[in-house]
């Protein structure tokens, strides 16, 4: 079914919307959650949570892309479930690896961000991504948004794993420099 029609079902409060969403984007959302969590069971639950959140948020929201809207909800549900602060200890999925990779980029020993700072950070990350070459940007998004494994990303873009690793590393360094420049990271630490 066409996305527009599915969204209309949401607006008409027709529960068929959830079924149609699940049929169309369930596997996609499952992959997003599975990358982050590693566990198929947990991933299934996160997809269900995301669909429920979609039901509760459309309307008033009218997503431009239902697929990405569901992907973001799934990602958020997966991160909540992963318990980011303990993900490194718990292992499983790509998330601990991604967090570990970002340690040098983001750590500055300061307290967790306030809500306002978090918004500023999101805005800065968006702006930063737009400065990147397309390939570097896409690699970074696949790694840090979708938590995809590096070999899979390399295959997707037809480059070697080494090249993907090197580009990701370079992007992380650029991001660190960018965030320091924007005053979001304390560069002296």
């Amino acid at each position, binding site marked *: 079914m066409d996305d527009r029609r599915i969204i209309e079902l949401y607006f008409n409060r027709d529960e068929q919307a959830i079924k149609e969403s699940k049929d169309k984007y369930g596997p996609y959302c499952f992959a997003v959650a599975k990358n982050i969590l590693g566990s198929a069971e947990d991933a299934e639950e996160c997809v269900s949570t995301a669909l429920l959140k979609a039901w509760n948020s459309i309307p008033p929201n009218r997503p431009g*892309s239902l697929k*990405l809207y569901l*992907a973001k909800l799934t*990602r*958020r549900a997966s*991160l909540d479930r992963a318990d*980011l*602060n303990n*993900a490194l200890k718990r292992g499983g999925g790509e*998330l601990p690896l*991604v*967090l*570990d990779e*970002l*340690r040098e*980029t*983001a*750590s*500055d020993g*300061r307290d*967790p*961000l306030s809500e306002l*700072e*978090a918004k500023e*950070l*999101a805005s*800065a*990350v*968006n702006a930063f*991504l*737009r*400065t*990147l*070459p*397309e*390939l570097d*940007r*896409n690699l970074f*998004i*696949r790694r*840090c*948004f*979708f938590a995809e494994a590096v070999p899979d990303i390399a*295959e*997707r*873009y*037809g*480059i*070697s794993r*080494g*090249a993907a*690793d*090197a*580009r990701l*590393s*370079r992007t992380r*360094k650029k991001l660190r420099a960018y*965030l320091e420049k924007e005053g*979001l*990271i304390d560069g002296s630490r």
Partner: protein
Amino acid sequence: MDPADLIKAMGEIDDDLIEGSERPRGRALLRILPIAAAFVLVFAAAAALMLFLGKKGEGPEHSANAPEATEAAEIPTSDPAQSDTDLYLNVVSTLPPGATEVPGWENEPVPSEKDYVRLASARELAGKADIIVRARIVDSICAYVPVDLVKDAKGRFMPVKTGESTLHTIYGIQVLEVYKGGETAESVKRVMVPGGIVEGVVQSIGYPDYAQYCRGGECVLFLNLPEESQGWIWSDMAVPMGFNEDRCDIEYDGGVSVIKCRFPEITFDWLESLSEGAV
């Protein structure tokens, strides 16, 4: 801040950025396939030509070297009548074996062993190639692509044209090493390029969004891209290639941007001049 904050912030990135990363698997391969096919054809043609020349019996020294020589591709010029005097430029690797960094390229991916095309030995080169250029291309998809350089009719060193269907845009060539050939194995000389000479040949091959013209050492590159994309092309492509603001002017005109750079063409004289610093 800690990594978790960053991970959360990534969840707020714009949809168009995420959508842009959704390239179906295998599409990149399809884009590269025509180039790979072209390279295979070029190498096959070169090997066939070498076999043909070997059968004609161009002297005992040549025949004795033939089996090894097939590993070092020779690219003939289009006019066989001139082949005795023309330069045959050989391939080409990305970094010297064992090297991990080239100045100015520290952050570029280091190719794996399989990416190397073995440089011909002095014995193989004797009497065959006058100059070997080891270089890599900076192009629109990969950071490096092994490349054959051949001398064109005007005496310029240009990358082998890989076919009209090629989608790659070549931004430049980084010359890493130059070997001078000679009549005998002993006379083949390795010319060190101090600090990794960076020079540019900008050439667009069959890519609709790019057009580029070079004449008399001046190239004009038209990029049909939004202005915001120019930043990375400049910082990631042009600057590492040795282009700088003294050498290039950038003009934005609606959707089409013009980068006009002046730089020396890679000519035989230029390559010759490199040998002056050889130890």
